């Protein structure tokens, strides 16, 4: 009977309508975007709070109807956008932090390079001035005869009258221009007997054991150095080059070491902490064949060592 077929068809249609899933295209679209964000390898770890807020909004949307549904679509749309943007912001902030670290490392590297270049330049100037001064002293000795009673048997750097005859404006002025800079740059280093600082011989009046007036910068640097380990003994070594007699060199080196000691004592370092040694030409740093090597060998070294470690000083 036809009416029976019609009834079955109508029932089937109703059943089909009842079992079909409800389709909300807005919900599906926004849920797909959130799923995409959660699966993104770069973004998924960020903005969890914003994503949770958007999920909550979507759940409310899923059960809402009528005018409330329209309002929730509007709000959920923006919450999903905010979740995406917050994740991108966090990713970008990580990148910015990485760039800041890279920049800091580069600036540190640049600073190291500049310091190294400045140190090399100061060292070059120091050697140049030392060599120039030595040549000036030698030239002056050739021009001014040494009185036998004073200069006989003494090395050039200990023979006071010839050295003093060097015109200060010619011999010392160029060195004085950079001496304070160089003395301000002297730094502790690790030597065979411990931490040490070295004072170049230009800090002294030529051929004498008297500290120059502008050597105070270097003495102040040494003061800071020795004060940092107040429990340690201070060993002060004087050294000369190999020009002249062994005895005269030992005498000059001792007197220069004593001059440094006196300067430190005048700045408040207890005398009993200090031992001075005149080592003469016995421990050269460089060959004595050329002016530059001899200049390096003429020095006073201040060493911080454990108390009562080395006997024999003055």
């Amino acid at each position: 009977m036809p009416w029976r077929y019609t009834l079955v068809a109508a029932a089937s249609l109703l059943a089909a309508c009842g079992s079909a899933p409800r389709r909300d295209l807005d919900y599906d679209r926004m849920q797909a975007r959130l799923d995409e964000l959660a699966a993104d390898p770069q973004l998924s770890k960020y903005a969890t709070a914003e994503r949770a807020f958007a999920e909550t909004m979507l759940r409310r949307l899923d059960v809402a109807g009528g005018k409330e549904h329209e309002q929730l679509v509007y709000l959920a749309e923006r919450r999903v956008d905010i979740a995406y943007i917050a994740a991108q912001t966090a990713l970008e902030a990580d990148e910015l932090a990485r760039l800041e670290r890279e920049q800091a490392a580069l600036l540190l590297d640049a600073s190291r390079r500049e310091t190294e270049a400045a140190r090399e330049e100061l060292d070059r100037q120091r050697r140049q001035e030392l060599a120039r001064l030595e040549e000036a002293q030698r030239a002056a000795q050739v021009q001014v005869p040494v009185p036998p009673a004073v200069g006989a048997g003494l090395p050039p750097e200990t023979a006071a009258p010839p050295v003093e005859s060097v015109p200060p404006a010619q011999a010392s002025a160029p060195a004085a221009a950079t001496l304070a800079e160089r003395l301000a740059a002297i730094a502790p280093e690790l030597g065979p007997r411990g931490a040490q600082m070295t004072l170049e011989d230009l800090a002294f009046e030529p051929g004498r054991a008297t500290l120059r007036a502008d050597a105070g910068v270097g003495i102040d640097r040494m003061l800071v150095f020795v004060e940092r380990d107040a429990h340690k003994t201070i060993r002060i070594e004087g050294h000369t080059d190999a020009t002249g007699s062994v005895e005269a060199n030992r005498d000059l080196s001792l007197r220069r070491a004593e001059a440094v000691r006196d300067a430190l004592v005048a700045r408040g370092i207890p005398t009993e902490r200090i031992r001075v040694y005149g080592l003469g030409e016995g421990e050269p740093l460089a060959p004595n064949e050329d002016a530059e090597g001899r200049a390096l060998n003429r020095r006073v070294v201040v060493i911080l060592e454990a108390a009562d470690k080395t006997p024999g000083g003055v």
Partner: protein
Amino acid sequence: MPDVDGAVRALALATESGAATYAPLELRFATEQLDQARAAIAGGDAKQARLLIDRAAANGDLALAKARLGRVREDSRAKAAQIAELKARLGVAPAAGERP
């Protein structure tokens, strides 16, 4: 009575963060919706006011998010440019895929 203050705070924060530059459209929507909400309150329509305030707050939050992203991206670009200049000065080769 609907709470206007929360939406006002969201809007102020977005404005302070540079939303006028990075999210002008969202900022304008939020401002207009807030004005409409105030008018609805004045007219005694609390339900409509609530709806508009929620929308204004959502637009304010979106504007704030966009402003933050815009600023951090700008900072990153500036930093990358500084690094490139520094590397050029130091003679360091730029890394593969480095931003210009």
